[in-house]
């Protein structure tokens, strides 16, 4: 059942992204940035947490969950350290994602040559 829900929710999020690309004069970069912001916004009221509980990977894989993780980390740390915790906690949960992206990109660029 979780597989079906993951499939449908993930698909809907991506379909929204495609709709924006097709019908508005926005670039993929616009879609990525807005999705991150939306994910962060939805975490403010715990809405994105509920979506993750409902759909599992279908809500964790799209870039929206990156915004959610940034927000989540900031909120956690700020509960311990107050206002300054926002800045300290932002990349706690997202660090592994960012580091992996950089490492994989680096090794890919070393080994492969673009075909064009």
């Amino acid at each position, binding site marked *: 059942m979780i597989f079906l829900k993951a499939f449908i929710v993930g698909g809907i999020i991506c379909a929204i992204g495609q709709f924006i*690309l*097709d019908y508005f*004069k926005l*670039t*993929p970069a616009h879609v990525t940035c807005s999705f991150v912001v939306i994910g962060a916004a939805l975490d403010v009221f715990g809405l994105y947490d509920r979506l993750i509980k409902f759909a599992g990977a279908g809500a964790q894989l799209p870039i929206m969950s990156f915004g959610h993780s940034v927000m989540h980390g900031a909120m956690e740390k700020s509960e311990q350290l107050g206002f300054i915790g926002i800045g300290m906690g932002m990349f706690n949960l997202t660090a592994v994602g960012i580091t992996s992206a950089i490492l994989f990109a680096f090794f890919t660029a070393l080994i492969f040559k*673009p*075909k*064009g």
Partner: protein
Amino acid sequence: MKVGRQSWKFNNDVYIQETATAVGPMEAQGPLGQYFDKKYDNSYCGKKTWEQAESQLIRDAVEGVFSKTNLKEKDISVVFAGDLINQIVPTHYTFRDFNIPFFGVYGACSTSMESLLLSAVFVDSDQAKIAMAATSSHNMTAERQYRNPTEYGGPKPDCAQYTVTGAGVALVSHTASKIKIESATAGIIVDAGQNNPNDMGPAMAPAAAQTIKQHFEDLQIDENYYDLIVTGDLAKGGSPILIDILKGDGYNIKDIHDDCGKLIYGNDQPVFSGGSGCGCCAVVTYGFIKELLKTKKVKKVLIVATGALLNPIILQQKETIPCIAHAVALSVVE
């Protein structure tokens, strides 16, 4: 001789003495593949970087005209050359190997006809014995510069175009050949208020219309004079707009209009709405249109190359896209 506001009529027997083209894999596999002289099966053209590959294409086309005519660099009086890349480096790095009085030109995708026009004016007024016009573009150098490196993988809308990987060179002189350069019209910069770099058709069509209309007025002819009016890269988006604008001016070019961006690729190739880039008009004109003229399938052609004169930074300053179109009229010698 200058006629009217923007045009020249070449009364002193100006001919395209010879042409040569070099293209990449997509163009070689397209419907006009047989008309190109040198064809590569990958976009690196035997070089290590995209920019070097583009230089190699230009070099192949230059050496192509030399081998077809047995001319050498010392026979060429002057060269007008350009491409799309910053500081037109592919062109410069090719011509550092050839000692020819050099003028770099930039007209974006109108460079082919801009360089051909200048060559014709120089030869017509005997300021040059043999003038060379060279133009190129390369899909990956253009993508990296104007948008993103192709490995970014960002999806593109259907109205986007695919920059042609190809170089075309023409030699212009008084030496009689089958193809005469009759006249030419220089464009003025026209800004239609468009600002979408992924949809250039609506931006460039008004410039093409202005040049064509002025060409007719300056030379006191109309659309019936030509068998074919071909634009450089309006492709599927811009062609209908051009036809509409000219209809409003009283000219109906629907049956004689075609576009290099539509001609160079087949419907089965993943090229969005068609080809673009200054190499597009160059290779189609110097490879395919030249053959149409030589075999008398058409007798009088007007080539209108359109260019969008923007860069990515100025667009981010909320500017619109000004465009220009240069036209050259070719006819077959009976």
